[in-house]
């Protein structure tokens, strides 16, 4: 903590605690595991705080939460972490078939659909739609190029639309 003022950790981290927990919660899928992951991430953030050189505190903290969550999932739920081959993402299919079936869907249906998305897609959508991060910020958090963020978001939305279409929610 030598490089920083006392109390600075609190000032950097506290404003983004909801964002940090929200990401952990959506990656973990339940409150109990999310709390474990978030606590572990905060402890790590505290240990790594010397390495924090200013800049966007939110992206910094969210990247730690993400890494912690992925390590936790690999250890405890290896089946949840399936690497998506990015070359499969290269082509984004025709969207004309996907009508606006999502219109009128209730929160429960949205939550359920979001929960079934593959991890990388879910995290991209959560960071974009729920946390309002820019493509560049998401790229920083997920440690992937901006182009990958764009294709993940496209695929994630496409899958959500498909799942609504299948259920016939109109």
């Amino acid at each position, binding site marked *: *903590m030598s490089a920083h003022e*006392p*109390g600075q*950790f*609190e000032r950097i*981290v*506290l404003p983004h*605690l*909801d964002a*940090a*927990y*929200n990401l952990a*919660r*959506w990656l973990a899928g339940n*409150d109990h595991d*999310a*709390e474990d992951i*978030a*606590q572990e991430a*905060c*402890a790590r953030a*505290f240990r790594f705080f010397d390495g924090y050189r200013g800049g966007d505190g939110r992206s910094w903290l969210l990247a730690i939460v993400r890494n912690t969550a992925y390590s936790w999932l690999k250890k405890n739920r290896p089946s949840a972490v399936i690497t998506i081959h990015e070359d499969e993402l290269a082509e*984004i299919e*025709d*969207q*004309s078939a*996907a*009508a*606006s079936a*999502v*219109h009128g*869907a209730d*929160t429960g249906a*949205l*939550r359920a659909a*979001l929960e079934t998305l593959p991890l990388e897609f879910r995290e991209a*959508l959560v960071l*974009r*739609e*729920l*946390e309002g991060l*820019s*493509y560049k910020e998401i790229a920083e958090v997920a440690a992937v190029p*901006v*182009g990958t963020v*764009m294709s993940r*978001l*496209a695929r994630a*939305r496409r899958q*959500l*639309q498909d799942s609504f279409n299948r259920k016939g929610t109109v």
Partner: protein
Amino acid sequence: MNCADLRRLLHAHVDGELDAVNSLELERHLKTCAACAAGEKSIRSLSTALQQAPLRHSAPASLRNQIRQLAGESKAESRSPVVDFSMLWKWLAIGATAFAVLTLMLRPAGISDRDQLLNEAVAGHVRSLMAEHLMDVVSTDQHTVKPWFDGKLDFAPEVKDFAADGFSLVGGRLDYLGGRAVAALVYKHNKHFINVFVWPATGDQKTETADLRGYSIINTTAHNLHYCFVSDLNAKELGDLAALCAKYSGGVLN
């Protein structure tokens, strides 16, 4: 741009991440293509639904306590006096005021036109690579690229391929710089892309090299045209291309 190209940009458009030129073109297309317009509407309604539904989880109190505890331990370790929270706000307010005053005092009157142009040029270059939208006309043939600009700009840039000298022409597109539409020629040198922005010069400019956020920029004028070269190449190699262009290029003002 055809439908397939535009579909890939729809998400960036809905997310407000697309540059102005592509956005305008996409907007125009959406007015005439019902299928793409339906796609856009569908993305937008999903996005709105996700943003408006109460899907966000708030951090439990235990997590907040943990942070305070960690921070508290560090305060004890560093043996600094415990900061009273009401005092903290006062200090923050004083700090913010001091910062604002200092900023006002130290900041130059405004960003100069030159800096603004350099910034826009680098942003244009980065964006062209990010959105994978380097080219509207893809061709290594100067006789294809040059006519493509006809009728799109109020001037006709000279387009030359310098493949023999290691700089191959790969295409061109329209871009927007310094408040006007400009021609962007794209060259490739080894694995590096170079954007050459061209527009009518307003005066003779001495050749000037700059370096911004790791990109080299060269500004120069030749034959009444302003050339702005941007790349992650080093300044020397970029200078080689600038010299080639200056030697062979000309242009006709319509």
